[in-house]
């Protein structure tokens, strides 16, 4: 076990977040069983008050999950020098087979929690609590993910052994390997750029269409486009974005760009990407809820904001990655 302060902060914070969501879920189960909107009884009133408690607990737990995602990256980056062969966060993640699963878990919890918060926000905007049952069912469903996140983190950190010799981004994201990541790293740069900017362009076109039309199918297309864009963007960062940032044709690590020596460029890059994708996923997920009469007007209004936020974040991400390519001292095509 690495008794590192960042590890202690992560585990204690995750445990607190889990406790808060567990409490919220227990209250949620009571609400689900006894909720009767048409009643004016004292019991119903008490349940309505409890919804505030649930919202507060989950909001705080989510805020922690978002921040802990960055703390996790920072921590695995900071402990990399304890492992032979590790030169960045990749090495730390490779030092225990659970490392990458923890990262995947954190990303999943980030998106799921965000979705729940938005659902709760929309429900509170209308007068008849139309999404109460759905909300609390989903909260109970979210609980295992948060529990798994904590379990994976604990198992990962407890299982770390400095005597293990690990491999770093050079082998994981390097050329000549047979892994998926190696394949992504060896994508031809020109083709990767073409695909990336085409998909980005299509995504923005879909956004623009959603802003100017109420067509149902466009919303589903928007969500699908966001999901595809996420995958393509990550591939783009690994295959060509990274080499321009590091100005090294063989350096494809997606984590080193969050280090100070690269001006922490990774942070605005990933913030833009995650923001753009998160808001981009929302329209399609919420489209079926427009069938509820009381939600229709509210959803149309907030959906517009989501699309605008998605557009803003995606354009910001494009600006950051393109500026790195354009202003880099690496002249790849004459390499």
């Amino acid at each position, binding site marked *: 076990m690495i008794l590192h302060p960042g590890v202690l902060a992560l585990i204690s914070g995750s445990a607190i977040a889990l406790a808060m969501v567990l409490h919220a879920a227990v209250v949620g189960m009571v609400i689900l069983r006894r909720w009767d909107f048409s009643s*004016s009884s004292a019991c119903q009133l008490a349940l309505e*008050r409890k919804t505030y408690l649930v919202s507060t607990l989950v909001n705080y737990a989510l805020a922690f999950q978002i921040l802990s995602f960055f703390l996790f990256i920072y921590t695995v980056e900071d402990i990399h020098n304890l492992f032979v062969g590790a030169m960045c966060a990749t090495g730390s993640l490779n030092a225990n087979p659970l490392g990458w699963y923890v990262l995947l878990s954190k990303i999943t919890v980030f998106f799921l929690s965000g979705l729940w918060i938005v659902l709760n926000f929309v429900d509170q905007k209308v*007068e008849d609590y139309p999404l109460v049952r759905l909300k609390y069912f989903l909260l109970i469903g979210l609980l295992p993910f948060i529990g798994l996140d904590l379990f994976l983190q604990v198992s990962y950190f407890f299982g770390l052994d400095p005597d293990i010799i690990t491999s770093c981004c050079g082998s994981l994201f390097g050329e000549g390997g047979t892994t998926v990541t190696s394949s992504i790293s060896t994508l031809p740069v020109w083709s990767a750029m073409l695909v990336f900017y085409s998909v980005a362009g299509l995504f923005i076109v879909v956004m623009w269409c959603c802003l100017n039309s109420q067509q149902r199918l466009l919303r589903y297309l928007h969500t699908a486009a966001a999901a595809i864009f996420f995958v393509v963007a990550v591939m783009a960062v690994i295959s060509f974005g990274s080499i321009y940032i590091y100005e090294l044709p063989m350096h494809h690590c997606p984590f080193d760009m969050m280090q100070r020596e690269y001006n922490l460029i990774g942070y605005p890059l990933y913030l833009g990407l995650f923001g753009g994708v998160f808001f981009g996923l929302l329209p399609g997920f919420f489209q079926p809820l427009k069938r509820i009469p009381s939600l229709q007007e509210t959803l149309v209004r907030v959906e517009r904001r989501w699309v605008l936020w998605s557009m803003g974040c995606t354009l910001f991400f494009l600006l950051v990655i393109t500026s790195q390519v354009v202003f880099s001292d690496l002249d790849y095509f004459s390499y």
Partner: protein
Amino acid sequence: MELIRAEEVTRVYHFGLPDEMTALHTVSLVLGRGEVAVLKGPSGSGKTSLLSLIGCMSRPTAGKIFVEGKDVVKLPERFLTNIRRETFGFIFQQFQLIRDLTVLDNVLLPLYPSAMGWRNMRETARPILNKLGIEDKRGIRVKNLSGGEQQRVAIARALINDPAVIIADEPTAHLDMDLAQEFMTILADLHGEGKTIIIATHDPFVYEHPLVSMAIAMRGGQIDRVDKR
């Protein structure tokens, strides 16, 4: 023109518990715009409970309440609070001012949840404080004011959102005759501006005042008699 309608409202406190108490029993009432209504009756007759229900401060155990045609009983708290803030201004029996805050801070309290900026808030308060003659005392802590001045602060706070209805609960209970007269003069001015006024009192000076257009006598949680003047 109908402003508030209560249909068969019942209010039971601590329902299902040993200390269960029925404060109101199937009360129905209609109040029109521009009305000056007085709820009179002894302590425990249900005046405060009825005011609380009409003013969207609480919900009835049974029955319906309509404010400007809208059924408010089933509204979630957030929406009920919005209606209360926009439609009603309350003057409480013991003023319920925050003693360590200044006059201005007390008056601006209802505006904090709004999106109004500080400058707009102060601009909104200024004419109200002027009209009530307490503009020069805006920086003084409420605990350092006299009873009459505190009442005017309470009135100013009730008026800050420009509500259609002013609700006053036993407003003259702690005032002498002169201050009571002053209070009714202020209410008359407000009525002249088109506001609807509802007062709960057992002070005969108030319920026999010429300003009153409707006197509602209550007893034992029910309406005994309604006199329209």
